[in-house]
């Protein structure tokens, strides 16, 4: 079984300050982990992914996430928030099953608000 918990439903930061979106996962096997971003009225876009290579993963738009097995965490960070970062962010865990289609399990989402 696999699950993912996003610890904050809403996060508000000022423009130019660091962003931290927290995610903890549970998985019986070595998982693949993702962060997706969804801007208002737009589809889901992949931000970054971890698939058992380097534990620090760099994504688009200056975001990065660190896989910490001992803490079962995959928190998303960015050194300096921009107004365009305001969106909903989903942490996702994936196991491949049946050898074909993999099953994604989504967190409930964190809405990031960026203020001036």
């Amino acid at each position, binding site marked *: 079984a696999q699950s993912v918990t996003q610890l904050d*439903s809403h996060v508000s930061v000022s423009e130019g300050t660091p962003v931290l979106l927290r995610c903890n996962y549970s998985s019986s096997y070595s998982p*693949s982990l*993702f962060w*997706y971003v969804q801007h208002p009225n*737009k*589809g*889901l*876009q*992949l931000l970054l*992914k971890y*698939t058992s290579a380097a534990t620090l993963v760099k994504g688009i738009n200056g975001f990065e996430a660190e896989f910490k097995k001992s803490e079962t965490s995959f928190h998303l960070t960015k050194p300096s928030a921009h107004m365009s970062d305001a969106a909903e962010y*989903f942490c996702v865990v*994936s196991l*491949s099953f*049946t*050898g*074909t*289609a*993999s*099953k*994604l399990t*989504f*967190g*409930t*989402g964190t809405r990031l608000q960026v203020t001036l």
Partner: protein
Amino acid sequence: DVKVTQSSRYLVKRTGEKVFLECVQDMDHENMFWYRQDPGLGLRLIYFSYDVKMKEKGDIPEGYSVSREKKERFSLILESASTNQTSMYLCASSRTGLAGTYKYFGPGTRLTVL
């Protein structure tokens, strides 16, 4: 670029109507998925298909069926729409194997059932 398109961005239907949501992908992906997205619940998998005419239930298949007659097209069917099926529906596609862990999503269809 991979493109996943959904036939409608917004739909309004009445209770009891039969509803078809269409999804088309242009990258020859083997796998296609239907999710629904509800506030506070994230995305939940309804059905998926890993080949033409093949389908498997996801986490919440009740009240839905699917059809995959061609590789590029995956349809979600609500046989008799109910108000609790008001939601955002997202289609996704992916390749088979490790590459298939990453899915490409369509823009979504916001369905309202009155």
